């Protein structure tokens, strides 16, 4: 009896403790959730309006709240990108993927990979742009190497297809040699994209960036900023409330700016209706984002900027511009039987003199993978100052290497979607996991990445994506169709009542069985 009473007392105490502790713990968790959402909102808004100080503060808070979460590092990367420090942004994205590894949700991996390859590419372009703008070449950096694609030797008998295949193999070989410098080995090899830009002495225009207009244009959060953007953008059709009117040239006529708030509200509602937003006329966060994106896309189409090509010997000029100590010159040619011969040598970027014994070898059809491995390792070992062996890299089949090289060529002019498909083909042909990863990273378009980003941020701020109320209404009406829409139920062979089976003749006589 006493033991029972004690047990009851213990249960009461535990229960009371739970009652006290659980709400407090729940409240703390809820507060933390609220804080998290609020700071994500704060950081997102600050990034949109270009308030770097507030964005940095918000990101720091987020890092403190959840040190393991990829979101703060991602936002940091986005801020660095916005500030033009794209190379550092790429390093952030890379660090998140490598640090978090398999614990990252698939949607984060997709977003971060897509951002990483693009930021790295633009970071290379920034770096090359600044190198091209310098009046005098920088001093050479010890251990920095420039590797350009192996040049195909012109053989008269070779067909166009064979020449294309050799070019692709030359690109793939250069990529593999560059990859042979791992993060912990001494020295560095300049990335292939930067190397190619340096050789051609030209950098493509920056997509979606017009610094002059960005500095002078009012921010999109203000009425004037929104109005000026609406004045630049062309609508697809007339406003939804005047469907028979002629399509205006712009969402907002220039003379309307600053005159009538209602004119801007109508123009905003028109813009919203054509961009999948509720036509409220209110400049909310979603509208700001959509408006800014549409404006940037339009400006990017108009922008075109290019530098004239360098006039010096392209390979050596590129190496000097990059501050490289050495450059690799390589050739590749087709020989009888479908085999390929390669030759390569390390030369001084200063005067073009040979720094190592020229190397050569065969890439036979039969043992392509082993020969490819030999190519990479021997070139890496012959590099001046090389005191470590090349890391183990995947050895592709010939078809895989050719497809990989073609994909690299497609990436150069910015044909990301085609490049992604070619990387996927290379992966299927045995080019290894790097080809698969690059295929995934280049697959989404910029717009798609922005949409994923919006979805992820929206989810962080407001919880899971909300359903469209129209869908819910339609489906609940479908479920209740026997009650309020009997015609619709009959249209799918359903009969709410059982009259269909009462016989027309002799209907008073029911013969059946009781179940």
């Amino acid at each position, binding site marked *: 009896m006493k033991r029972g009473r004690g047990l009851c007392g213990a249960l009461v105490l535990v229960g009371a403790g739970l009652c006290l502790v659980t709400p407090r713990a729940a409240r703390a968790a809820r507060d933390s959730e609220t804080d998290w959402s609020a700071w994500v909102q704060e950081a997102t808004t600050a990034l949109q309006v270009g308030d770097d100080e507030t964005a940095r503060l918000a990101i720091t808070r987020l890092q403190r709240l959840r040190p393991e979460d990829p979101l703060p590092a991602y936002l940091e990367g986005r801020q660095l990108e916005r500030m033009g420090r794209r190379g550092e942004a790429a390093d952030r994205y890379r660090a998140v993927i490598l640090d978090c590894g398999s614990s990252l949700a698939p949607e984060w991996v997709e977003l971060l990979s897509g951002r990483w390859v693009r930021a790295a590419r633009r970071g290379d372009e920034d770096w090359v742009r600044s190198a091209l703008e310098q009046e005098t070449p920088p001093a050479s950096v010890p251990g920095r190497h420039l590797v350009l694609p192996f040049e195909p030797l012109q053989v008269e008998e070779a067909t166009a297809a064979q020449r294309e295949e050799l070019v692709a193999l030359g690109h793939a070989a250069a990529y593999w040699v560059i990859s042979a410098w791992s993060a912990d080995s001494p020295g560095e090899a300049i990335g292939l994209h930067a190397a190619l830009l340096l050789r051609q002495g030209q950098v493509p225009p920056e997509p979606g960036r017009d610094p002059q207009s960005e500095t002078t244009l009012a921010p999109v959060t203000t009425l004037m900023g929104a109005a000026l953007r609406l004045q630049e953008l062309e609508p697809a*059709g007339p406003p939804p409330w005047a*469907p028979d009117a002629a399509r205006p040239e712009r969402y907002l006529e220039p003379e309307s700016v600053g005159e009538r708030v209602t004119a801007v509200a109508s123009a905003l509602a028109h813009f919203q209706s054509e961009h999948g937003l509720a036509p409220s006329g209110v400049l909310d966060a979603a509208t700001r984002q959509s408006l800014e994106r549409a404006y940037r896309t339009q400006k990017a189409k108009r922008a075109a900027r290019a530098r004239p090509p360098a006039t010096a010997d392209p390979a050596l000029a590129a190496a000097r511009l990059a501050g490289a100590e050495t450059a690799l010159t390589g050739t590749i040619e087709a020989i009888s039987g479908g085999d390929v011969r390669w030759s390569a040598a390390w030369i001084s970027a200063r005067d073009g003199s040979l720094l190592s014994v020229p190397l050569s070898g065969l890439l036979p059809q039969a043992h392509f993978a082993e020969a490819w491995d030999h190519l990479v390792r021997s070139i890496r070992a012959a590099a001046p100052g090389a005191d470590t062996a090349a890391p183990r890299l995947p050895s592709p089949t010939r078809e895989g290497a050719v497809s990989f090289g073609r994909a690299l060529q497609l990436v150069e002019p910015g044909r990301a979607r085609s490049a992604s498909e070619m990387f996927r083909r290379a992966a299927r042909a045995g080019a290894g996991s790097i080809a698969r990863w690059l295929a995934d990273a280049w697959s989404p378009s910029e717009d798609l990445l922005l949409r994923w980003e919006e979805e992820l941020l929206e989810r962080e701020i407001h919880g899971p*994506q909300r359903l469209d109320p129209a869908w819910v209404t*339609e*489906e609940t009406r*479908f479920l209740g169709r026997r009650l*309020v829409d009997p015609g619709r139920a009959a249209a799918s062979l359903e*009969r*709410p009542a059982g*009259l269909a089976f009462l016989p027309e003749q002799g209907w008073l006589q029911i013969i059946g069985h009781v179940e």
Partner: protein
Amino acid sequence: MRPRSVCRIAAIVLGLLGPGAGASPIWNEADLTFETTRWEIGESRAEQSAAVLSGDVAWDERIAAHLELRGSRTTGSQSRIPPGASAAALVGWQPLPEWRFQLGCATPSGIRELDAATLGLSRRVGEPVLALSDPDPARGWRAHLSALWGRSPRRGVGLLLGAGADLAASFRATPDLNLNPADAITAHATVAWAVSGWRAHARLHAVREGADRGAGVVIRGGRTLYGFSLGGGLESSPVRLAAGLDVSRSGVCRVPHPEIYGLSRHPGPGTLGRFVLAAEPRVAWDLGGGLRLRPALDVAWRRVLPEGLPFADGWASSAGVRLAIGKDGHELTLGGIWERGRWRAGEEGAGRYAERLRGWRMSAALRWWRMAAPASVVEADG
């Protein structure tokens, strides 16, 4: 739980909603629709006029209701079903964004104690080929319970799963017979998309119907129906398009003694296909005073392959125009549809006959809805 009990609960819920929710109701939409349909079926005819007054009301973001008054009058060549009317209410409760529960109830139509002629007419106007708006004029108390779960895995995509039960109370179908129509359980899965002006959905559903009983005796066994529907719409600057394709398939239905219904075997499975297309060109004529006139075109096609179900094997196609006159949340729509078709009824061999179908339907609808006008406040919301 019987339908009358559910209706009592629904009435109490509706009665308590206003004061209980602490908010006054907001009417979002009200419609008054009147439709007259006339079919000439061979030498005979069937005519139905139906009027529906409905409204959508919400108390807050979580509680909303659809209320409806429905009445119809059906006339045949030789007989006439007296006018009847019923009221229905569907109350939806959405406690969480992903969940919505629905409770509904409908009163009897008041049409009861049919004789042989009116019972035959009632059966005829229920033919799916005719697609009348009130295919079952005689009915008793009915109730509905359902739950819907939905999730949006990414923007513009929705996955919705639902299940519901429809309960029907018995009513005196003939002077000597209490007919207890079957209860039914419905389950469905829908995937919906909405991307830059395009909307589309694909839905799979299954309905398990119980047995129809007359005076406690099973007069039609249970059956299962499967359906698949695809629908889509486009909102573009030159035209607004809406299209739908439905395919329903019924399972075999066990009837205790098929021969007494003139059937040689257990009926089913049957199939119904339906295609509808509505096109609204973005042109409008200004009538002055802010009134606008907009035309629209409707096309539909139906095919029923009953395979032994007691429906007619036939098809019908229809085409019509609609004219909408309206301004600022008010609209009057007038429509006219011409229909053609053909059906065969009866069993193979003796007694099978084919009839030509010709018909028209005229409709008038008055609609009011609450407009979300563009706001005049155009400042950042932070």
